[in-house]
């Protein structure tokens, strides 16, 4: 089982004359966890938005499951791939259950009614993400952490094989950060879901990724396994700053530590 989930060749994208992505090439095997890191404004989010076809006027080729991304209908693409934005809009007027149920969209025709199969998938997704307990609450009343859980529940209900996540844990406290990352690991293990995750959190990336890519100024500047990126020189090249390291007491993995502020 070593199929390619996503293969990107020479992906370039410019907006208003500014080159955001430059000849990006990489591929992700099915069922793997790829983390994308890099400084602010490097083009990480743009990359995900190209992949999910929110942005369409890029150049190059993107293959999803050995088929050209542009050859998919939006609906068929949604059966394979889903995008989890950094934050959901704060004012969604639907209940959690309604919102997750809407993720069944690619599996329904315009006038077909939600069936028991859909309800089953939805309740399974809500169980797994521990959102079932507030299913009837209106989305607008949720906390940031809860909203992120629901966002992932919806991605699950969509039954996509590939999750594209944009900093899923950025605005969350420590507990919710851990919850989101262990949830993603669990989803990856249970369903063989391919995870592509943009993050600023290098430590959680090295602790959960199979592969890490670093992007800087629209170009890939690093691609490799987690332990390779935990290197003074590599990181300084990516982030233009020095890092201090420590050893993770449980896994022995090299991790970065916060800077001393004088």
């Amino acid at each position, binding site marked *: 089982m070593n199929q390619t989930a996503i293969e990107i060749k020479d992906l370039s994208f410019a907006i*208003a004359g500014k080159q955001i992505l430059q000849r990006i090439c990489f591929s992700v095997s099915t069922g793997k966890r790829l983390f994308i890191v890099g400084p602010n404004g490097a083009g990480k989010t743009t990359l995900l938005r190209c992949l*999910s*076809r*929110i942005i369409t006027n890029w150049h190059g080729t993107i293959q999803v499951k050995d088929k050209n991304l542009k050859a998919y*209908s*939006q*609906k*068929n*693409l*949604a*059966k394979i791939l*889903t*995008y*989890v*934005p950094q934050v*959901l*809009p704060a*004012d*969604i*007027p*639907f209940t959690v259950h*309604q*919102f997750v149920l*809407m*993720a069944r*969209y*690619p599996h*329904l025709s*315009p*006038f077909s009614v939600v069936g028991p199969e859909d309800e089953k998938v939805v309740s399974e997704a809500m169980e797994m993400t521990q959102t079932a307990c507030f299913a009837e609450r209106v989305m607008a009343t949720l906390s940031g952490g809860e909203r992120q859980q629901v966002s992932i529940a919806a991605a699950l209900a*969509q039954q996509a094989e590939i999750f594209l996540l944009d900093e899923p844990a950025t605005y969350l406290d420590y507990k919710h950060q851990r919850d989101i990352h262990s949830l993603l690991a669990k989803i990856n293990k249970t369903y063989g879901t391919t995870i592509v995750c943009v993050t600023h959190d290098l430590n959680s990336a090295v602790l959960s990724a199979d592969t890490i890519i670093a992007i800087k100024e629209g170009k890939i500047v690093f691609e490799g396994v987690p332990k390779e990126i935990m290197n003074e020189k590599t990181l300084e090249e990516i982030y233009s700053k020095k890092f201090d390291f420590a050893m993770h007491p449980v896994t022995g993995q090299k991790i970065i530590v916060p800077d001393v502020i004088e």
Partner: protein
Amino acid sequence: MNKKNIFISIIVFALLVILVTPFLGPIKIPFSALTDFGLNTIAGKIFYTFRLPRVLTAFLAGAALACCGVALQAMFRNPLAEPFTLGICGGANFGTAVYLIFAASIPIPHCGLAFSFAGSLAAVLLVYGLTKIKKGFSVGTMLLAGIAVNFFFSSLILFLQYISDFTQSYKMIHWLMGSIDVDGFKTPGVLFVFTAIGAAIVAAQNANLNLMSISDEIAISRGVNVKSARKIIFLATSVMVAGVVAFCGPIGFVGLMAPQICRLLVGHDHKILTPASILFGGAFLVLCDTIARIIIPSSQMPVGVITALLGGPFFIWLLLKDKSVSNL
């Protein structure tokens, strides 16, 4: 009361309004007129040539405007979006004004509809084109473009009035106030076709509207072809607005108020919200028109005056109350 019951209440309300209002007016109509299909009595004639067709026309126009409103508001994620504020009505107005001044003598039946449709379509293309030029589809630019398009067409209409003679000008002013004048079932018949086609197209978009009302990002990642959904919704609204404006003139704010009130009543799921808004909008305009018919007994006030009187304050109330409005 749960949402299903409220929805059923809206259906009953709409039916009651359609059944009762034809009997209201300066001339008393006995219930026996209902069975006078041969139009042998004066009451029967009034009932079947004026009252009932007028009520049906008002219902269909209100339904169409509310349907446009509900679709546009979801698409723009802004409760102020409706055919009137986006300039689509303005375009249809101009088309119809051109027809009234230059083409009223063309002996093709319902020729005015073609002019009205050309106008609404032109307005839609203009609004859409303006946002295309600016790259990216921002809700704010779209609404502002709509206002600009509205002003543009208004000034063109003023110009037409300036060059037209007194009777033409009077006709145009009366029509621009938005009034429902009918003679028999022809008008509601033709309007039914426009409203039904438009409403069916919008109803087929209900699942898309739900997702688009959250964000385009979410809609796309769930599999909605947002670009084509937008085009379909624009086309459906220009069809409906063309029908309404050609027969009733520009009737403002129904498309703003009906969906907003229905959201409070049945919630935000378009599978219920769209049909509820259609029924409520229809009944609402019938009531406004009934008030317009009877408030000054000797004359008939244009219904557009009533809807604008209600709509203006409603618009301001929304502006103050709704946070998403100011999120331009």
